[in-house]
């Protein structure tokens, strides 16, 4: 039960929670948060895989950094869409 296995299990659980939130979450905002949780789970898997080698695998860290910025811009776009749909309803 090393550090790597523990964080991989946490990532698997996070993925499950994120999927549940995406499927069930009533409000749109909650589904976007659930998407971010799923993203966090995937990045946790990648960073834990990078931590297996002694000097942590910088290539994977760069990939996760790219993924993080992509996730933020996608979230910003989704939130702008949610804000517009909500103000249309009001």
């Amino acid at each position, binding site marked *: 039960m090393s550090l790597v296995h523990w964080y991989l299990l946490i990532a698997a659980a996070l*993925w499950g929670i994120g999927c549940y939130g*995406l499927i069930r979450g009533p409000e*749109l905002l909650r*589904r*976007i948060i659930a*998407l971010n949780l*799923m*993203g966090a*789970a*995937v990045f946790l*898997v*990648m960073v834990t*895989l990078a931590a297996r080698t002694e000097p942590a695998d910088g*290539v*994977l860290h760069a*990939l996760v950094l*790219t*993924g993080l910025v*992509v996730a933020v*811009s*996608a979230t910003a*776009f*989704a939130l702008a*869409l*949610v804000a*517009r*749909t909500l103000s*249309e309803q009001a």
Partner: protein
Amino acid sequence: MNFALAAALLPLLAAVLALCWRRQAAWLVWLSTLFSLLLALAALWQVVTAGPTTMQLGGWQTGLAIRWQLNELSALLLLMTALIHSLVASYSLSQWRAAGLSADFWPLSALLQAALSSLFLSVDLFNWYVTLELLGLAAVALVLLSGKKALQAAMRYLLLSLAASLCYLLGVALLYGHYGWLDVPQLAVAISEHPVDHRLALWLITAGLMLKAALWPLHIWLPAAHAAAPAPVSALLSALVVKGPLFMLYMIWSQLAGPELVVTGSWLFLLTGSMALLAGGWSALRTPYAKVMVAYSTVAQLGYGLLALGLMLQLSDPVFTQALFLFVLAHALAKTSTFLAVGEMQLRLGGKRLSTFRGASQTMPLAMFAVAVAGGSLIGLPPSGGFVAKWHLLLPLWQHSQLWWLLPVILAGTLLSAAYIFRLVVLAFNRAKPVSPDFAPALLPQWLALLPALLVWMLAFASGALLSWLGG
């Protein structure tokens, strides 16, 4: 490889310049699509004469750098992207003031072309993730161009597209965890050396890509999004955006799947393909709205692609690869022409329902002719490209008697597609609704809508060259 690099970078440069000088954006992007068409032709010619080449981006060795691979297949797909973009750009240029298409269309469509070109050229798993995300965001932004009515459809499209990208990324992370390679050919070598059970990674990647390509069970977002988008945008979406993930599915399943996984995968694609044909055709038959019908026809026609992929995996016969990419080419041209013509008629005659097309053959004969010719290729009538693709799908099936049940399915699919195309064409020959005397729609947009239909109609004459390029 230089021409292919130029063909991929030109739309990128055009998009950035279009954002700087917003008044000349239209001309700038239109010229860039034409130039990239010429460059793509030159790239194809270079590949045919000098053979396939690869390029390591940045000059580093294989595992570290992103690798671009230019063979006949990717050159042909690059040419298809450039051709469809130049057709749609010229159509939009000819009537965007009338249709009220906002000026943001131009940088977004140029970015879409750049994303697609770099997707077709690259063979790096993580680079595919970034291009896939770029493709998804550009498509959602383009759908939003038609304002308030597209909000709901775009929201659902964006959420599902983000979830699909995350599934794909998780699959890629697992593969990198097992084998340590991101480069697909190198990964295939690593898998063949000491195979490890990576089924979940492949299923995650397949689920993500099937959702992105709107393949049958995960197609729910497509009809609303493609129908709500303006005509040139829905042409781009149906013809090109859904083909990117389909190309990735082919590349991944043909190289990374182990022998026993290929069998299960092929059965999955065969079943989903058949269901796509039947369910897509049936929904297209029953919907009262014209653009929704054309969108469901995309879902149905993608069924042929799935069948070709499934058969290629099961019988490992290269003729099915030819059938798959012939279908991709033929469907792209036919669907562009159909969406442009239907959009033009909807704009001029006003109204979304099929009843507005009553008597369209008298009021707008040219656009109606385009729909009929493109419909012929969708059904698969000779000598259109659709016929050549279906022919190369059916011919080898006769020898393999264990897949007998596919023949009635394809027959039923063809009948359904004939039904929903003629449903529109028959309406056009009824007596036209009274039209104001000065009703004279511009002819240039209708001619531009007819052009891809004529191109796909003559595809059979070019099938010899196409077949030899597609791995004959």
